[in-house]
């Protein structure tokens, strides 16, 4: 990256190849229509063009590029899940993320920190050992670390034994990382637009036309668009969009709130998570603490913030880092998490032919952006669902073949 910067400085060229190419009017028809211009939709568009040579693609975005849950997550990337399906899937995503700044030629500020999931009880220690063994078996780097080692690794973590939930150890996952989430959407979208994909903002899908069980067109606020295939990638609004195609989903939409503190001197290298305390926290390169907790107590399609959330989160955070009690909050926001009954995504085919879905991204969507884009592009292009995502098919619910992912964030263990 620095070399590219130097080259540009000397040659005087501009970064215009990274800018989006904005299309004019909608065409009457496209081969592929992608509903949703967030990270997942734009990644799928990029891989459709790059890996499969399909460029007659329109991405339809109701708001602006990357303005939904792509901009509302806490930017954590990891693969230390519990089910083999989950570990394999997220491991491919972590590997893609590691080279992504180079591939997209945009600085994602990918920062490998290590990810510590704290254990406060003997039962949690057993679960962490289980997760570590599943991870290692599948080639993912995770270790159970006990009190003394953890105290060395995170010196400012309160390791007192006279607190409500003393820390006994942690699942340590060295590949755990954070990245600049907006840049992921911009990188994928910019390059996709240069390969011929049309990205239409402020274009809302208002209806989906199905004939003989096959999708034929979508209606938008800018007119009707005929299409060969559709990919729905609208985290936070999945049930409402799928309803237009007559599909019912195993999803409940619940707000997930998060917040950021004022910038502090760097003191926290790894990402710290505690399922028992419902808190996760990391420190950005700017020094701000990014913090989140559990999902709201009831479903809602809204991104309002509540005092209850902040009170509960801070109460728990101060159990881990008591010295933060005087720190100010800078911003607070929420995203809409599409929660599934088994804490796994819904990817692949639907009962409507040529209508593919990428949904159910609850609290685990950002980290899956590259792999879901790549594998959904493969699904749309070939009409065949790759083995890697077969386990996440929508029909698993009617087949009673769920993927119980207890390694997901915001899940009480």
């Amino acid at each position, binding site marked *: 990256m620095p070399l590219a910067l130097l080259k540009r400085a000397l040659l005087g060229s501009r970064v215009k190849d990274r800018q989006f190419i904005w299309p004019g009017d909608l065409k009457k028809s496209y081969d592929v229509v992608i509903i949703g211009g967030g990270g997942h939709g734009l990644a799928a568009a990029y891989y459709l063009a790059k890996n499969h040579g399909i460029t007659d693609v329109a991405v339809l975005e109701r708001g602006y590029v990357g303005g939904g849950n792509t901009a509302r997550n806490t930017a954590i990337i990891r693969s230390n899940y519990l089910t083999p399906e989950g570990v394999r899937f997220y491991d491919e995503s972590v590997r893609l993320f590691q080279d992504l700044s180079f591939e997209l030629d945009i600085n994602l500020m990918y920062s490998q920190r290590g990810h510590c999931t704290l254990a406060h009880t003997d039962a949690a220690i057993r679960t962490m050992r289980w997760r570590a063994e599943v991870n290692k078996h599948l080639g993912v780097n995770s270790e159970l670390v006990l009190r003394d080692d953890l105290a060395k690794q995170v010196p400012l973590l309160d390791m007192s034994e006279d607190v409500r939930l003393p820390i006994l150890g942690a699942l340590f996952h060295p590949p755990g990382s954070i990245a600049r989430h907006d840049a992921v959407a911009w990188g994928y979208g910019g390059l996709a637009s240069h390969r011929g994909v049309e990205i239409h903002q402020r274009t809302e899908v208002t209806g989906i036309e199905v004939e003989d069980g096959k999708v034929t067109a979508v209606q938008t606020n800018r007119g009707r668009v005929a299409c060969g295939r559709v990919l729905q990638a609208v985290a936070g609004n999945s*049930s409402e969009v799928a309803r237009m195609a007559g599909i*019912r989903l*195993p*999803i409940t939409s619940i707000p997930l709130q998060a917040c950021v503190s004022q910038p502090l001197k760097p003191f926290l290298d790894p990402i710290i998570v505690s399922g028992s305390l419902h808190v996760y926290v990391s420190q950005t390169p700017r020094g701000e603490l990014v913090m989140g907790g559990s999902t709201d107590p*009831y479903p809602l399609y809204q991104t309002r913030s*509540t005092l209850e959330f902040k009170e509960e989160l801070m109460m728990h955070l101060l159990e881990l880092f008591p010295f933060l009690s005087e720190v100010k909050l800078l911003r607070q926001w929420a995203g809409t998490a599409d929660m599934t009954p088994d804490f796994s995504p819904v990817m692949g085919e639907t009962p409507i032919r040529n209508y593919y879905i990428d949904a159910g991204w609850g609290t685990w969507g950002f980290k899956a952006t590259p792999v879901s884009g790549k594998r959904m592009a493969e699904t749309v292009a070939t009409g065949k669902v790759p083995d890697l995502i077969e386990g996440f098919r929508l029909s698993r*619910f009617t087949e009673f073949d769920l993927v119980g992912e207890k390694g997901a964030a915001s899940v009480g263990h």
Partner: protein
Amino acid sequence: MKMMTCPLNGPRNISEFAYGGEVIPEPASDTVDDAGWASFVFLSDNSAGVVREWWCHVPTSYWFIAERHRRSNEILRTYPASEVFGAGAQAKDQPA
């Protein structure tokens, strides 16, 4: 804090209540097929409009029904379950 009106206890902080899912008809267990059962257990309308929901006032363990708008978060109405299921209803009874 947001308030909710319990039909038994009057207006209380919403933190005293627990959400208990959408009010949906339960299929007859002796005739339902797998798809119908899966639909009842796993699938959801998850509407962004007004939804009829089960709520419980936790301190008094009192279950009732609320009609709430899932986009504005406005609670339109709360009422005893007997209004939907009839007086003396059993767990297996269907909503009207």
